[in-house]
């Protein structure tokens, strides 16, 4: 159901203000969504004044600086810091992306950082993605091929291989799915752009023999057709992929097969 307002326990309050202690001249205000599961209080927005003279270029560097130098209680996921693992996906300046690849000087004014939208928050910037992972499991994201008993590699023509370009690069960071209003309102039933892109990745693979079954499984009013080509997903993808196009191809396959 479309629900515009946040539930009562999710209303965001004004939080603490951390004043700069370094005496730096080039300060920026960073507003960060905080929620501590141990207190039972509502989420709040804490504001940090950060010395930008001694801060590397990406938003993740900014968060690390805050955690190391100002407030060690800040919680967020991060791992590779090179845009490969997808751990540090969050909402920065009103748009989803990876904190490790987003330069903070692209953001004008105060820097606003929130967790990925419309998720149950576990702590601060960490959202609960277990529904998405379950949906990912439901499309059986592995190669199904029973007829090929070769001990050697399962070969593919260059042309067939090129069909996977723009799909295999997906790192499942969930930036696209959590940017999608359809996924916000129907997240339990609609598979969402990330999972549908993955579904398409296996359906289009020439080595896979389960295409018909996969298509049948995904052809559902709610699972697939809740995509209304809003294109927030493509707009958000930090890897420059196009989930909206993948979904359109799925729909096309279903009517032309």
């Amino acid at each position, binding site marked *: 159901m479309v629900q515009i307002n946040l539930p009562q326990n999710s209303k965001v309050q004004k939080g603490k203000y951390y004043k700069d202690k370094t005496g730096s001249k080039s300060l920026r205000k960073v507003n960060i969504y905080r929620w501590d599961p141990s207190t039972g209080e509502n989420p709040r927005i804490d504001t940090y004044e950060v010395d930008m003279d001694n801060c590397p270029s990406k938003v993740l560097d900014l968060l690390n600086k805050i955690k190391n130098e100002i407030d060690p209680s800040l919680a967020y996921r991060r791992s590779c810091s090179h845009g490969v693992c997808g751990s540090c996906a969050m909402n920065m300046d009103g748009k989803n992306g990876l904190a490790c690849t987003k330069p903070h000087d692209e953001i004008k004014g105060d820097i606003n950082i929130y967790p990925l939208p419309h998720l149950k928050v576990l702590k601060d910037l960490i959202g609960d993605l277990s529904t998405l992972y379950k949906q990912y499991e439901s499309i059986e994201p592995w190669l199904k091929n029973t007829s090929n008993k070769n001990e050697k590699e399962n070969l593919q023509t260059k042309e067939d291989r090129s069909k996977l370009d723009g799909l295999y690069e997906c790192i499942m960071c969930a930036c696209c799915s959590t940017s999608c209003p359809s996924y916000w309102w129907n997240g339990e039933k609609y598979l969402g752009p990330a999972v549908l892109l993955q579904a398409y990745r296996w359906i289009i693979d020439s080595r896979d023999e389960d295409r018909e079954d996969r298509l049948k499984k995904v052809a559902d009013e709610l699972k697939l057709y809740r995509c209304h*080509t809003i294109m927030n997903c493509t707009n958000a993808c930090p890897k420059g992929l196009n989930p909206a196009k993948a979904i359109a191809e799925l729909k096309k396959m279903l009517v032309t097969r």
Partner: protein
Amino acid sequence: MKNSNPLSPHIQIYNWHISSLVSISHRITGIINIFGITFVCFWVVYLLSGASSYEAINIFFNSFFGKFIILGLTWSFSFQMLSEIRHLLMDYGYGFDLKVANITGSIVILGSIALTCLIYIFGRSLI
């Protein structure tokens, strides 16, 4: 325990861009058009019932509010039509490139305003 966790902000904080604006407007104008078509049907039926009722409609449509409704409906129909063409192309698999989607989206927004003006001017010249 788990369900008592707060929900992270969504539509309150997410940035709008051309594609999402066109998409939501497409849905809103769609609903308006359903009422619009019903309204036009009633108008036609009303015209059949003679000169006096025609006069009443004429006065209403020449009032400020009447003009606002006519222009609003014209825009809503124009927008829906152009946006529908955009969606049709998307159903064929075209126009998903971000740049192209932004351009076609802008064309829909600007085109609907231009079309409204054209229809208005053309309609005025007929009277």
